[in-house]
């Protein structure tokens, strides 16, 4: 039950993109369509999980003074291995993700989870945390990618949704569109949270009156 909690916290409550506001760079750069966003999300999910396992396994051996360089080495190794394997066995996907893959090494969310969670927890919870955070990241990426692709290109996952009468605003697909969409989503999430809080306070106050 506890493990389930570790998993789900990454989806909404501590969503890496919308709540922790980490790794906004890929959330802007790789979300102009759903396909790329999903590919990037799954890649990050894989790397973050492997890295959490690796950091958690070696957490008692790693010297605290050099822990950050060691984490980075671990992430870089996993990414390189993933690239080599993809190149050999899934060359088409490798071609699609090629330029973004090497960037995964410096994504803040991966190092953050190693430092905040994996270094202090046992292997299984660390793995689950990685999976959950990766899933939350993927969810965020696909949400942004979906909105941008539908508005900016009139299609979803490559399928044309809107007819030729629709003239998509190009800005949504270009970088500024990414900022705008992420801003609106974070704003909406904050608003709903505020509403929820007010409601709770109201019911608490009402309860006090009676």
């Amino acid at each position, binding site marked *: 039950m506890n493990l389930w909690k570790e998993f789900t916290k990454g989806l909404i409550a501590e969503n890496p993109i919308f709540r922790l506001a980490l790794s906004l760079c890929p959330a802007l750069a790789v979300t*102009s*369509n759903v396909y*790329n966003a999903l590919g990037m999300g799954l890649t990050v999910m894989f790397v973050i999980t492997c890295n959490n396992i690796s950091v958690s396994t070696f957490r*008692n*051996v*790693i*010297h*605290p*003074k*050099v822990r950050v*360089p*060691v984490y980075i*080495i*671990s992430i*870089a*190794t996993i990414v*390189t*291995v993933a690239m*080599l*394997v993809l*190149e*050999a*066995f899934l*060359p088409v996907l490798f*071609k699609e993700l*090629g*330029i973004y893959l090497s960037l995964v090494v410096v994504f803040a969310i991966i190092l953050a989870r190693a430092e905040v969670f994996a270094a202090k927890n046992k292997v299984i919870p660390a793995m689950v945390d990685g999976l959950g955070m990766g899933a939350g990241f993927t969810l965020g990426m696909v949400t942004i990618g979906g909105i941008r*692709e539908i508005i*900016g*290109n009139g299609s979803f996952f490559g399928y044309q949704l809107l007819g030729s009468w629709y003239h998509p605003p*190009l800005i949504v*697909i*270009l970088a500024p569109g990414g900022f705008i969409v992420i801003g609106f989503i974070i704003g909406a999430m904050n608003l709903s949270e505020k509403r929820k809080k007010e409601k709770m306070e109201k019911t608490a106050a009402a309860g006090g009156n009676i």
Partner: protein
Amino acid sequence: MTHTDHNDNSMFRITLNLTLAAFLSGVIIAVVFYLTAPIAEIQRIKMKEQSMKELIPEATSFSPIQGKEEWFKAEKDGQLLAYLILASEKGFDGHVKMFVGATPDQKVIGFKVLSHKETPGLGDQAFKPKFADQFTGKGYQQLELVKIQEEGKITAVTGATITSRAVTNGIKHALVELEKYLNESK
């Protein structure tokens, strides 16, 4: 952290720790590379051959042209069908690398992009049939890019003029090079 050792913070231990981590990572990468490199090489050749096959489906063999890097002759039963030329042209972001297919009398058959960094969903529209089919059958003299549709000319993709230009220029240069090469070898 479980470090309670007195000498725990000595320079030696810290260095050793980092060195071991780097060494371990090096060994892992080396082993994986050793195992995957031959497979990746085969895949690379396969992908290149596949993109050549897609351009000239009738051809049965592709032989490299002497003295030219990444130029190929597409042949069927010893008969020359087409030339395949690797072109690289600066696009919106980095170079667009593509194979240009041309008939022996220097008309465009088509092109196939090998690698690019154009904006997804925008620049890459210039690699889709709607734009790409305009080139078929044209010689380099006819390759002129316009923004508003005009008979006999290439119409650029709306919002992706730079990528359209890169493709057009890449094909043009490839054809000019081809003519030069054919004149020299005559």
